[in-house]
C-alpha cells in the first residue's frame, strides 16, 4: 500500500520538504477534506488571521483521483474560512488535482507569504518557486492562457489579488468557489500553482476495479437523474421545480416564488442558449453547460447562480446571468456570495439604509458594479467584504442571508426546513452540500419529504451530511451520489400516490435512521444502489471499506471540522439562521412557513452524540478515533 506523500511549502523562505502521511492517518482519514481537516487541526495554531502569513492552505487529493472511478477528479482545498473564521473546504473538478498526483504529490501544505507574486511549479516530485510578477493583474482566463497548456493549474484573478473575501480560485473553467480560497492565495502573493506529471495512481485490485467501474458507469447512465436530467439540463434544471415548490429565493429571500423564473430556468437555457454539455475529467454524467454568451462559447451557470442572480434580485435577464457568471469566474469570485451580497445591498437601498447603486429588478449596471467589487473600488470595497460584514456596518442582520458569515445557497429553507437545519449546522456556513442537501429530498427533487414538517429531519440531516462528507473525502463529485434516490421514483413521478406516501411517512423514520447511524457496522456490504464510492475506495486502496465504514469516514470528517470550529471559538449560537427565516412566515397565512430550528437542533445534537451545547462528547471522539 502506497501511503500519500505531500509537499510542505513555505512561501516566506522559499523552502519545501516532503511530508509523509502515516499509515494510521491514511487508514483513518483516507484523503480529501477528511484528512485535510485532521492536518489543519494538527498543524495550525488557534486564532490566526485567515489572511496572515501563518495561515495554512492544504490542497489535496484522494485515492480515487486520477483513477477511472466515475466523477473522481474533485480535488480539495482546506483552510481557515475567510468569511466565517471556522473551517473551509472547497472542492473543484479542474485538472489540477489529477496532475499534481501524476507529478508525485498527493497534497500540498502551503504556509507563509511570498515577498513578490509567485507561482509554484510541481513536476517530477519537485516544487519550484517561480516569479509571477508578469501574471499579476491578469484575470483567471488570461493567466491560464499564459501557462503551459498540458499542465494542471490553479490560479486567482483580480478579486483574489485584492483580497475580496469571497474570491475564488480557478482550475480550467472549474472554480474552487466558496469561503475565500482566492483571498487566501492573494494574501500569500500566490498567483498560481501548476503541475505536470505522468505517474499513474496505483490500484490495489486492478482487474476487479475495471469490472466494477464498468458496472458503475452503466448504472449511472441508466439512472434517470445522472443519465438523463443532469446531462440534459445540468443543475440549472432545478429552477422551475424550486419555484413550483416555493423554494426559490426571491427578493433577497423575502419570498420563495418568482413569477418570471422560467426566463432563467434550465429548460429555457437548454432551449435557447445551450451549445452542448461537457464534463470534468472521468465523469460520465457531464452536467456542465456550454452556452453562448455575447457570441462566445463559455461555461454556463449552475442552479445557484441562476437562482441568486435571477429570482433573488427580481431579474428575468438570462443574458445578464450568463455574463455575470462568466465575469465572476474570470475575475475569480464566488457567484453565490457575490450575488447574495448584491441582493442584500439591494434591500439596504430599498429600506433607505445605504445606496450602492443597485436596485431589485435593475441589472444593466451590474457588470460595472461587479468589476468595481473585484477591484475594491471606492464604496464597492464594502461589498467585497460579504453580507455579514455589511450588516455589521450598515445594520440589517435580520435580512442578511448568511450562516456563520457564509452566504446561503439558493434554497429557501422555509419550504425545506431540513435544509434550514443543514445550513445552520454546516461546518463551513450557509452551504447546502456541506449541510446535507435535504432540499433534494424535500422540495426540489422527485420526492417531497413533507417540506415544512421537522419530523426526522435531524436524523436525515446527520445521515446525509455524513454520506456527502464521505463522498467528498473519496475525491468524487457529490452529483454521483444522487443515484441513491431510487430510479423507480422517477418512473412514478412526484405526484404518484406511492411517492407522496413515502414523503408523508418519511417524517416518522427518525428512530430507524438513528439506529442505523449508531450501528453502521451492520451496513457490512457495498451496493451500487447506496454509495458505490465505498467499493471503489476498497478496490483502489485495498483497505476494508464497507458502506458502514464509509459513513463512519464521513462522520469522522464532519466531527473533525466541528472540532476545528469549536477550537476557533464558534459555538451553538452560530448554529442559527437569519431572523427572516426563523420568525417571518413566507406565507403570512401559513404558520408552518418558518424554520422551526429550535425543535430540530436539540434532536440533531443528540443524534450526533454531541452535548447540549453542540460539542462532540469525549465518548464520540474516542469512538471515531479522533482522540
Amino acid at each position, binding site marked *: 500500500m502506497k501511503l500519500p506523500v505531500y509537499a510542505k511549502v513555505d512561501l516566506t523562505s522559499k523552502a519545501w520538504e516532503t511530508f509523509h502521511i502515516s499509515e494510521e492517518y491514511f487508514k483513518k482519514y483516507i484523503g480529501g477534506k477528511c484528512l485535510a481537516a485532521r492536518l489543519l487541526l494538527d498543524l495550525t495554531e488557534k486564532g490566526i488571521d485567515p489572511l496572515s502569513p501563518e495561515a495554512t492552505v492544504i490542497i489535496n487529493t484522494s485515492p480515487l483521483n486520477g483513477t477511472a472511478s466515475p466523477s473522481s477528479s474533485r480535488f480539495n482545498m482546506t483552510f481557515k474560512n475567510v468569511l466565517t473564521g471556522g473551517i473551509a473546504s472547497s472542492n473543484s473538478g479542474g485538472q489540477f488535482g489529477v496532475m499534481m498526483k501524476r507529478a508525485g504529490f498527493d497534497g500540498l501544505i502551503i504556509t507563509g507569504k511570498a515577498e513578490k507574486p509567485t507561482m509554484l511549479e510541481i513536476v517530477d516530485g519537485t516544487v519550484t518557486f517561480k516569479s509571477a510578477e508578469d501574471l499579476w493583474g491578469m484575470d483567471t482566463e488570461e493567466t491560464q492562457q499564459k501557462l503551459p497548456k498540458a499542465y494542471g493549474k490553479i490560479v486567482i484573478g483580480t478579486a483574489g489579488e485584492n483580497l475580496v473575501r469571497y474570491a475564488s480560485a480557478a482550475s480550467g473553467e472549474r472554480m474552487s468557489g466558496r469561503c475565500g480560497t482566492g483571498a487566501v492565495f492573494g494574501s500569500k502573493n500566490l498567483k498560481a500553482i501548476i503541475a505536470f506529471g505522468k505517474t499513474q495512481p496505483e490500484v490495489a485490485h486492478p482487474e476487479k476495479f475495471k469490472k466494477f467501474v464498468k458496472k458503475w458507469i452503466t448504472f449511472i447512465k441508466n439512472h434517470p437523474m445522472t443519465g438523463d436530467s443532469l446531462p440534459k439540463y445540468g443543475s440549472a434544471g*432545478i429552477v422551475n421545480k424550486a419555484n*413550483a*415548490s416555493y423554494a426559490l429565493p426571491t427578493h433577497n429571500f423575502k419570498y420563495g416564488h418568482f413569477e418570471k423564473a422560467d426566463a432563467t430556468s434550465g429548460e429555457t437555457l437548454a432551449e435557447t442558449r445551450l451549445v452542448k454539455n461537457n464534463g470534468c475529467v472521468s465523469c460520465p454524467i457531464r452536467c456542465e453547460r456550454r452556452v453562448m454568451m455575447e457570441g462566445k462559447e463559455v461555461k454556463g451557470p449552475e*442552479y445557484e447562480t441562476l437562482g441568486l442572480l435571477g429570482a433573488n434580485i427580481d431579474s428575468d435577464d438570462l443574458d445578464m446571468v450568463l455574463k455575470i457568471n462568466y465575469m465572476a469566474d474570470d475575475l475569480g469570485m464566488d457567484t453565490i456570495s457575490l450575488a447574495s451580497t448584491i441582493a442584500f445591498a439591494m434591500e439596504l437601498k430599498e429600506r433607505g439604509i445605504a445606496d450602492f447603486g443597485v436596485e431589485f429588478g435593475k441589472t444593466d449596471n451590474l457588470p460595472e458594479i461587479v468589476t468595481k467589487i473585484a477591484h475594491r473600488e471606492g464604496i464597492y470595497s464594502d461589498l467585497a467584504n460579504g453580507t455579514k460584514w455589511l450588516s455589521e456596518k450598515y445594520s440589517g442582520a435580520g435580512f442578511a442571508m448568511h450562516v456563520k458569515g457564509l452566504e446561503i445557497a439558493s434554497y429557501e429553507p422555509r419550504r425545506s426546513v431540513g435544509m434550514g437545519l443543514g445550513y445552520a449546522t454546516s461546518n463551513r456556513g450557509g452551504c447546502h452540500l456541506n449541510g446535507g442537501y435535504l432540499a433534494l429530498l424535500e422540495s*426540489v427533487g422527485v420526492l417531497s419529504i413533507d417540506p415544512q414538517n421537522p419530523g426526522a429531519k435531524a436524523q436525515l440531516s446527520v445521515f446525509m451530511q455524513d454520506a456527502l462528507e464521505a463522498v467528498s473525502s473519496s475525491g468524487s463529485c457529490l452529483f454521483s451520489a444522487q443515484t441513491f434516490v431510487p430510479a423507480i421514483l422517477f418512473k412514478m413521478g412526484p405526484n404518484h400516490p406511492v411517492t407522496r406516501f413515502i414523503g408523508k411517512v418519511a417524517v416518522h423514520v427518525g428512530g430507524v435512521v438513528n439506529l442505523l447511524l449508531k450501528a453502521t457496522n451492520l451496513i457490512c456490504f457495498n451496493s451500487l444502489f447506496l454509495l458505490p464510492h465505498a467499493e471503489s475506495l476498497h478496490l483502489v486502496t485495498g483497505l476494508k471499506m464497507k458502506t458502514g465504514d464509509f459513513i463512519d469516514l464521513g462522520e469522522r470528517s464532519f466531527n473533525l471540522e466541528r472540532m476545528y470550529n469549536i477550537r476557533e471559538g464558534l459555538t451553538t449560537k452560530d448554529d442559527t439562521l437569519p431572523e427572516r427565516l426563523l420568525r417571518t412566515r413566507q406565507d403570512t397565512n401559513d404558520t408552518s412557513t418558518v424554520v422551526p430550528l429550535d425543535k430540530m437542533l436539540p434532536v440533531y445534537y443528540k443524534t450526533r452524540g454531541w452535548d447540549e451545547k453542540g460539542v462532540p462528547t469525549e465518548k464520540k471522539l474516542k469512538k471515531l478515533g479522533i482522540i
Partner: protein
Amino acid sequence: MNVTVKYRGELKDFTKLSEETLSAATISDVLNHIKITYGKDALKTAKRMVIAVNGKSILLLKNEKTTLSDRDIVTFLPICGGG
C-alpha cells in the same frame, strides 16, 4: 374553463407543441386530454413530471383534483437534480 397548457421536456416529444389552449376544470381533465390526444405513453410521461398551476406545484394544491380557473396556466416540467 379555458386554460393554457405548456409542455416542457420530453412531453414535447409527444405533443410536438410547446403550448395549447383547452377547456378543463381540473388537472385530471388536462391529463385526460393528453391521454386521448397524444396516447398512453404521453400520459405516463406527463404523470411523472412536475405539474404546476400558475407556477405552483399541484403538490401544494390538491394534486390531480386541483380545480382550474379561466386563463390559468398549467405547466409540465421535467424533474431535475444537481445542486
